[in-house]
């Protein structure tokens, strides 16, 4: 009964506040160890939401809940409620394959498949049957590479292995690969931590552009990065969300003393 009421309220307020993903009381346990403690967060559409906090605070764990990547870990248990467009993604009726097509993911270390650049991007559309023929598939590949800002660099060597690109190019290839299945939300787990500053700047610029079409959630260790690319920020500490709000607000006028200590570099 309560959940029904909650759902109705959630739905109503979700529409009202225009929320893409709504997380309520999300807790995560690895076997007996609790990694996240009743986290609540609303993710706004077509905005970049940054999750910041010291190492081991649960921000990556939380990110992986958003497309159920934690399912692949046997001992991991998730409780609470995560709604994508007001649908519970942990509901048994939800197919995790479709969910991950809607909520794509880019990982910390670039992980292109050991295939050609073309095949890397075509991989997702192929398994989801998004293209009706070779021409359509090529169109999707080209569009995705263009959106990921990689097209100009690779258009003449689509047949070369994706692993032969530089680190920054590989990461943009992974972003193109995620875009190719036309997701609504893209999750990024420290996407620049393995890149040099120049490649980082390129990827950050790309994230800013992608905001026009996609909702982005990014985990980052770098507060400058959070300040540069995000509109919303959530500060995690020891498995809890300490503070959420607009990025400007959090960085200029933090309400919680722990947030202030972290962004001024006293803890972390």
């Amino acid at each position, binding site marked *: 009964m309560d959940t029904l009421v909650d759902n109705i309220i959630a739905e109503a307020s979700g529409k009202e506040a225009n929320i893409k993903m709504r997380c309520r009381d999300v807790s995560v346990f690895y076997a007996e160890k609790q990694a996240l403690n009743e986290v609540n967060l609303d993710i706004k559409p077509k905005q970049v939401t940054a999750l910041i906090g010291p190492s081991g605070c649960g921000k990556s764990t939380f990110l992986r809940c958003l*497309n159920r*990547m934690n399912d*692949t870990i*046997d001992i991991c248990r998730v409780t609470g409620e995560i709604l994508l467009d007001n649908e519970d993604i942990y509901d048994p009726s939800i197919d*995790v*394959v*479709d*969910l*991950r*097509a809607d909520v*794509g*993911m*880019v*990982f910390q*270390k670039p*992980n*292109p*498949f*050991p*295939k050609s650049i073309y095949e890397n991007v075509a*991989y*997702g559309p192929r*398994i*989801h049957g998004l293209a009706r023929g070779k021409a359509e598939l090529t169109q999707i590949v080209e569009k995705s590479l263009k959106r990921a800002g990689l097209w100009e660099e690779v258009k003449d060597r689509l047949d070369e*292995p994706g*692993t032969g690109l530089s680190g920054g190019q590989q990461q943009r290839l*992974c972003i193109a*690969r*995620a875009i190719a*299945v036309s997701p609504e939300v893209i999750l990024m787990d420290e996407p620049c931590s393995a890149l040099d500053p120049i490649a980082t700047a390129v990827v950050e610029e790309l994230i800013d552009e992608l905001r026009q079409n996609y909702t982005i959630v990014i985990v980052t260790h770098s507060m400058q990065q959070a300040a540069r690319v995000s509109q919303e920020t959530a500060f995690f500490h020891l498995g809890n969300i300490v503070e959420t709000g607009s990025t400007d607000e959090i960085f200029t006028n933090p309400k919680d003393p722990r947030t202030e200590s972290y962004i001024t570099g006293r803890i972390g």
Partner: protein
Amino acid sequence: MPSTALFVLLVFSLIAFFAARSKAFAVAGDHIGELHSRPIYHGAYTTLTILVPGIIFWLLWNFIATRWISASISSQFSETLSSLTLPQQEGFIRDVMTLASGGVATFVDETKITAAQMVAEIRSRQLWIGGSILAALSVVCCWFAYTRITLKMRARHRVEQLIRIMLIVCSVVAILTTLGIVFSLIFESVRFFGRVSFLDFLFGLHWSPQSAFEGAGSEAISADNSKVFGAIPLFAGTLLITFIAMCVAAPVGLMSAIYLSDYASQGFRRIAKPVLEVLAGVPTVVYGFFAALTVAPAIRGWGESIGLDVSSESALAAGLVMGIMIIPFVSSLSDDVINAVPQSLRDGSAGLGATKSETIRKVVLPAALPGIVSAMLLAVSRAVGETMIVVMAAGLAANLTINPLEAVTTVTVQIVTLLVGDQEFDSAKTLAAFALGLILFFITLALNIVALRVVQKYREQYD
């Protein structure tokens, strides 16, 4: 006794080890840090300085000593020996040696006893001379190393160098052994090809080496010989059985590897993998009688029930059982390479919404392909070289057929049958075994090279 001398040498070098170590401590005094090498290295250096020359000397000495004895027997008893044939001469020397060591010889006579006494005398003299030289050498070496223990002495580097030399010697031994085997194969094969034409052997369709010896004596050089040493049926049989075996082992092994690496729980994997590897530990002769007594009759009964003519020894029975035997080679190696594919690739695929089997088919297996191919090729070379199962279950008849229900034979089985029995060593029949062995060696070598190439070509696919 030669071995006693070595034992004494060992004990002496051990004592020298402790002496050198404590001298190093004494030299360093309170400033142990100023010693270039730790005392244990000074000890090891002294020990090795004694042991290495000592052992080399002793081996050489014993080599010379044996020569010395046979030389003095031949010169002392040249009249007796010259009246004997070559095998008798060898027998004479053998008996003398046995008597000299206090054993019992077959035919004892006066000359042998005198000779034996002389040998015993020479031996004890040799032991004394050799022993004294060894002792002197050890003491000199010990003194050499011991007096060199100072703060600056680089004992550690010397020990490292000696270890490196020892490692080189060991690998050279392995390489030389392989070369020796290959050359003996080549030389005997060349002799064989002197009697049977190479092309007839390689491309002949008829294999019945037994018929080369229907006469007695000189038939090995008869004109027909080339016609009975046609190796094609053997290689066809080998290929057929290997093919059947791989039809069993490749899918079963690969799929169980995929299950173990990607689907099974940790606990199940911990138990199942060693159990699967036990299959590799079953002696092949056990597989052989399993094939001959259980599988072959079963296939035969089943074939007859649907009206097929199945011989009681069939390629199918041998191939099936051989396939089961090599499952663990495929599964264990493939499991290792599949596991070595980084988790990040699996995550990347899952993050795009691929299911587990899509991820495995399209990402994991292509990435693990080089390793899987080399696992398969290893299994193939194992199947090609397997003998026991085929002897027992597939028979000896060299039929040129691709019907798996008939009896066939393989190269290895024929090598065994050629060498078992009372044949003169230099008959064409025996030499044929070397030629077969040589060809088989080149086939497995080629397989290994192909496997290596495949691995090298695809090695850098994922970092």
